[in-house]
């Protein structure tokens, strides 16, 4: 056994570029998952039955099958129906959709948990139904949902690694590029793991601060 981490520094730039893409994908897919999660939650709670039932069913499909399978379906399926989406966007949208299903569950529970008296008070002050939800219910629900949605975003960060399978040049794929030149899989995958761990810790730290702030607001 010979371990030689000496080869890693000469690929530092490649790995760092990969890391930046990983963070960028996390931010993009994370935003999609949060916005779409809110949209799904409000549709299933307030929408007409005609819309809420199919949305519920589709969400269930996303929760019950693996992310990788969903990515393949998007990747191969879209081209079958003639939609040509670059692999990068297929990956970002697929990841965003997957976690939107998870976030929707959390937002739905948080919207449910807002004290009904809040809505009654706003309505009796003359706010419309829509304005009540937008200005009073939603902000409170978002604060309640924050810790769990944050947790999902950390899980999402780790799942961006799966996008390497589609040929998206994030951290894992760039590590693989370095490995194909050096034949040192352990060193590079280990370094990649270390980088993920650092970003993970940073995210946990920031979310901890955000959660405490949210607690203060409440």
């Amino acid at each position: 056994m010979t371990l030689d981490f000496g080869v890693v520094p000469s690929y530092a730039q490649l790995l760092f570029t990969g890391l930046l893409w990983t963070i960028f994908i996390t931010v993009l897919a994370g935003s999609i998952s949060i916005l779409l999660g809110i949209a799904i939650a409000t549709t299933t709670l307030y929408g007409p039955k005609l819309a809420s039932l199919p949305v519920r069913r589709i969400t269930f499909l996303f929760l019950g099958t693996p992310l990788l399978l969903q990515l393949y379906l998007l990747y191969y399926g879209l081209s079958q129906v003639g939609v040509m989406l670059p692999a990068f966007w297929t990956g970002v949208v697929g990841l965003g959709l997957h976690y939107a299903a998870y976030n929707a569950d959390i937002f739905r529970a948080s919207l449910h948990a807002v004290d009904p008296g809040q809505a009654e008070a706003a309505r009796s002050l003359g706010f419309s139904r829509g304005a009540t939800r937008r200005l009073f219910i939603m902000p409170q629900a978002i604060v309640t949902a924050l810790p769990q949605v944050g947790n999902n975003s950390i899980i999402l960060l780790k799942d961006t690694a799966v996008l390497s399978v589609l040929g998206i040049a994030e951290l894992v794929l760039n590590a693989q590029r370095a490995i194909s030149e050096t034949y040192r899989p352990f060193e590079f995958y280990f370094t990649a793991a270390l980088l993920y761990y650092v970003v993970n810790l940073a995210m946990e730290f920031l979310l901890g601060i955000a959660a405490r702030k949210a607690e203060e607001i409440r």
Partner: protein
Amino acid sequence: MDFQLIGRILPHIVEASLLTVGLTICSLALGLVVAASVVAGRFSRMTPIRWLATAYVSVMRGTPLLVQLFIVFFGGPQFGLELTPFMAGVLTMGFNIGAYMSEGIKGAIIAVDKGQGEASRSIGFGRFDTMRLFILPQAAPLMIRSLGVNTVILSKSTALVSTIGVVELTYSAQRFVTSTYKPFEVFAVSGAAYIAIVALISLIVRGTEKLFDADRRVGA
């Protein structure tokens, strides 16, 4: 929808699902052993062991499963550890899910009333017997839900071992897509197979919960 194609690939998909179930069961068995050891470590009286167990959970939960899998499968041979893809998959997923499961078990143990342990210790039971006879039986019903959730997550993450060449559900689906160019049909069947597996696990979890509930009623 090409129903003829669905009929043709169905037997193969069913066969591949059996491998997915096998992967899940083997990883679960290993995961439970790992989880039990980690929990024992986290309640240890020796501080370094507690640190080690905590660090283990943090690292396993803080890095992607896919990267862990690649470290074991591709990096292992550098240490003379040549594993078959199936073995590498079970080993990685077992050690990974064990870290997640240990959190659920730890939570359940902490949730048991502190007085129970104190009472048992004060009438002369040792630390080990207190855990075995009083704490764990009361903690068991509390950990079923989280163990079940983790098993569902595990069954879905077995899809990742397709990347190292285990022909389980996802890999066989991918093969059929490239040979038939009918992604919707193929993924509909394999997706349904995953949902069936997840539903089966949920059913078992619910059954176990009922069993414990009935137990408690008889005991009361």
